[in-house]
């Protein structure tokens, strides 16, 4: 394999969307660098420190557990009460012989968000101890690959639409997981504002 020398991350940056080279300039907090040719986001300073992100991810995981374990909404019709958690809803789709839909809902609302949060927690735990996690590159790659497929915020809107539709048929009782999903939507929006590429900068600081 031919030798390729890295030319220093801090010196230049190529636009992700039009490939134009720019010289990196230091940015103030909350400032963004945009491409001079196409206007795409070039880079921005990390919105959180490793400690802050770790706390945020840990909090998100706890809220995620609550959102999975408790009923989202309940229905009351003539004294009978029915409620459902997200895993139960997914199981029911599977039971109705809709495996494609069941797998899709499972992956986008449960599995992928859980994997992404766990991967971030693992990477940050090691970074906070001043070292690179084993398999660092692969795990960062997994976070980047999973990110577009996590759809908790869309699911949250789906819950609201379903609640309105169901309220025409029966009395709807909001469940614990409804509030948990609401909180999770905000927590994940904050987590996602952290570009996984910043992990490489943190890793370089961690390396001796």
């Amino acid at each position: 394999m031919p030798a390729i020398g890295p030319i220093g991350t801090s010196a230049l940056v190529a636009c992700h969307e039009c490939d134009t080279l720019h010289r990196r300039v230091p940015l103030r907090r909350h400032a963004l660098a945009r491409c001079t040719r196409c206007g795409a986001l070039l880079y921005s300073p990390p919105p959180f420190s490793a400690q802050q992100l770790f706390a945020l991810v840990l909090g998100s995981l706890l809220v995620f557990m609550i959102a999975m374990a408790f009923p989202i909404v309940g229905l009351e019709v003539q004294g009978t009460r029915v409620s459902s958690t997200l895993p139960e809803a997914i199981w029911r789709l599977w039971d109705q012989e809709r495996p494609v839909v069941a797998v899709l809902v499972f992956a986008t609302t449960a599995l992928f968000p859980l994997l992404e949060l766990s991967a971030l927690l693992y990477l940050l735990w090691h970074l906070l101890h001043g070292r690179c996690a084993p398999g660092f590159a692969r795990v960062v790659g997994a976070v980047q690959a999973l990110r577009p497929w996590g759809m908790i915020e869309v699911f949250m809107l789906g819950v609201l639409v379903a609640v309105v539709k169901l309220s025409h048929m029966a009395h709807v009782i909001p469940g614990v997981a409804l509030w948990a999903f609401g909180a999770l939507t905000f927590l994940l929006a904050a987590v996602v504002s952290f570009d996984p590429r910043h992990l490489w900068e943190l890793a370089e600081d961690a390396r001796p």
Partner: protein
Amino acid sequence: MNAAPGAAGAMGTSAAAGLLACRACGQLSRRPAADAPCRCPRCGARLRTRKPQSVARTWAYLVAAAILYVPANILPVMETRSLFGTQKDTILSGVAYLWTSGSPELAVVVFVASIVVPLLKMGALGYLAWTVQRGAARRRHERSRLFRLVEAVGHWSMLDIFVVALMAALVRLRVLAEIEAGPGAAAFGAVVVLTMLAAMSFDARLIWDHGRHHD
């Protein structure tokens, strides 16, 4: 070399400067002389000047999505069984139900997410792939912005799938009413996934490449 980086203001592309930008971590590397496959020295990801077969892949996913779009809209996504018989709802009749039952705001939200967004995505990606293939040089800023929009709104089309999943989970009062997900839901979910894959396959940098033909 006139395209060498460092000339203030007029910096070209990384490809023209003999550099490769890593898609995973952003690191720039010098391109080796031979066209041998190489990896990012920092993160080990495969380095390529452009995504391979980008336009052909985008078309393939788009065609598949367009084919499945037909059953996704014709077949019912939700089947309601009650004392009064079975009612089958397609995506569009679900929107109509929301509109007539006194929730026009939500009808608009679902209409945008389930009808407008998938059509916009397929139309926009088709337009982008076609103009790139023709080597069009006009309206680059607009096309660039269009692509960013398509990427940003893509996953919101999954909305109706989640609504159906919840309705089916909750309405299971054997005597009174029961709701099941219909075959259209699977087709619709597949359309959303395929259009997202189409957007991911498309290399936005092709919009800005001058007069070069790809794939």
